[in-house]
């Protein structure tokens, strides 16, 4: 990095963070507009069809739904600036507390899915590029095509049926076995909490419960990663400097690792960043089938009961996560590729 580059990088990060705040504000506004122009009555959804008009009115007053929409938005934003996401119409608990409870389960599942996606997609894409137009390449391409087109919920149903119900190799839905005692919650990630509680049995149990949903959720990402790794590597392997490196007698492995993979890392990184959005979508569907107590299930239940404050909470957290991951990816560019600078 050039002299003074650190300062420019800092300015760049600050500018990106400012932009992120703006985008998140836009997300709240868009979510608010969309959820309030629709002709739906959250009070009726929360209290059911048999509620009397006075009860509905009480509910509206209590939750501020009787005020003009501009006022409702102002109140919401005022609280948001103090870190208060409001109270869920459905659970009647603070939404921040709800999210703290459900988010770790989704985070744990998503991290495992990313690990699976990288462990499968990266080597597969590499092998495909190195054995271009031969059997391994063909297999990798078929995997990438099928994996990118398979409905994740069907994969989940099939995986549960085969590996849990028929073969009995892996546990079924849930984060730990019903008869296991959950470790005390510290991080919310059951595997980590089990380790902190020195409980190796629950740790192994939780890990086994993560395998099926993690693989199912990671499959789409693995397919996309295979495809991008393959094409990025093919592009790089055709370059002159690779031929030069080979011609000067460098061992094949060294050429691949030091010269090719490093140069192919940018597009691969971009895909990893953009995968985050699809992982969240996949998590909603995967969690439904694996009875995973995560943010996907919370969002679904909230949407069904027209619990708009909760839906907005989930939307904000998802938007924040998306923006942070993309910022991280852009910053990693600098680390991976000396040609990129944000000066």
């Amino acid at each position: 990095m050039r002299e003074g580059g650190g300062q420019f990088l800092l300015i760049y990060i600050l500018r990106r963070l400012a932009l992120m705040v703006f985008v998140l504000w836009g997300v709240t506004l868009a979510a608010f507009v969309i959820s309030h122009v629709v002709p739906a009555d959250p009070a009726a959804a929360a209290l059911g069809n048999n509620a009397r008009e006075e009860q509905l009115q009480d509910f509206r007053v209590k939750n501020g739904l009787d005020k003009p929409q501009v006022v409702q938005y102002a109140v919401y934003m005022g609280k948001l600036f103090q870190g208060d996401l409001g109270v869920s119409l459905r659970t009647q608990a603070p939404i921040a507390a709800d999210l703290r409870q459900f988010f770790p389960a989704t985070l744990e599942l998503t991290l495992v899915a990313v690990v699976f996606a990288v462990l499968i997609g990266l080597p597969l894409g590499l092998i495909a590029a190195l054995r271009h137009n031969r059997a391994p390449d063909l297999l990798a391409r078929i995997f990438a095509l099928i994996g990118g087109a398979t409905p994740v919920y069907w994969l989940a149903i099939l995986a549960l049926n085969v590996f849990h119900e028929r073969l009995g190799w892996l546990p079924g839905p849930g984060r730990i076995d019903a008869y296991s005692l959950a470790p005390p919650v510290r991080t919310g990630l059951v595997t980590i909490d089990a380790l902190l509680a020195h409980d190796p049995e629950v740790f192994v149990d939780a890990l086994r419960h993560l395998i099926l949903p993690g693989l199912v959720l990671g499959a789409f990402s693995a397919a996309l990663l295979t495809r991008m790794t393959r094409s990025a590597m093919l592009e790089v392997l055709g370059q002159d400097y690779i031929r030069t490196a080979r011609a000067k007698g460098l061992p094949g492995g060294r050429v691949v690792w030091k010269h090719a993979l490093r140069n192919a890392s940018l597009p691969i990184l971009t895909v990893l960043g953009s995968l985050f959005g699809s992982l969240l979508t996949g998590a909603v569907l995967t969690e439904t089938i694996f009875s995973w107590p995560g943010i996907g299930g919370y969002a679904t239940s909230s949407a069904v009961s027209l619990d708009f404050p909760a839906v907005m909470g989930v939307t904000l957290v998802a938007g924040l996560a998306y923006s942070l991951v993309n910022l991280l990816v852009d910053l990693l560019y600098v680390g991976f590729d000396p040609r990129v600078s944000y000066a």
Partner: protein
Amino acid sequence: MTAAPMLASARSLFTDRRSTLRKLLRNPGAVVGLVLLALLLVAALLLPPLLGSPLEQNLGVRLSAPSTAHLLGTDQLGRDVLSRVANGARLSLGLGFTVMLTSLVIGLVVGLLAGLLGGWWDEALMRLTDIFLAFPGLILAMAISAALGPSLLNVMIAVALVSWPTYARLIRAQVLSLREREFIDAARALGAAQGRVALRHLLPNSVAPLLVQASFDVGSAILTAAGLGFIGFGAQPPTPEWGAMVSETRNYISQAPWASSTPALAILATVLAFNLIGDGLRDVLDPRSR
């Protein structure tokens, strides 16, 4: 991706339509995709009138295996799976194309305006695009269809609302790279109005990347909509929508795997077809990037 090869390829698409098509037909993946799509279209158009009603229940033959009477078996209510999947193809293909066209039009307008007007407009429209890109699509779609009531139309609105930003970015990038070129200058010098430059010169030259994106988008719209149908936010039972069908029959996967696997495989085949065609189009129209 530089403008020159894309420009050449886009032009060849217009002036030399036959050669583009011929190249596409020499691309093995694209051929597989086109054949799959043709089969699906034929099934969607021709099969429903020939088969029984997709809603007709016959509990006497529930969960029966594929036979001559029911080529792909029956579901838990004794409905013909083939008839339901063929009728579902009408819904899904219609939805995929409608969503793609809607988001294409929104994205085109936003992207063209941003690229042409520049300055403040560009900044504002692109930030709007950023906001919708950061929006978790499925959650937005769930909220919309929960509020408006679950229906296929609301699913289409929801999916279109989250898929237009890709087009907006794409077309803006095209406009920015094209607008400094000589033929645009020439058009302007000849006194062509802004709108004419946009519609007659910029748009035709941006067709190639749009076509590729549109092909992928039909598939992904179908996949998203089916996902919404699966969790109950789309078309409601007994409508033969693919995602809802997988959901309805999921508990019978051991006894009657055909009932949930047939609609799932139909989704897979459709998305695969559009992805293969998209890949093929990209290879043909823009051989540099793959």
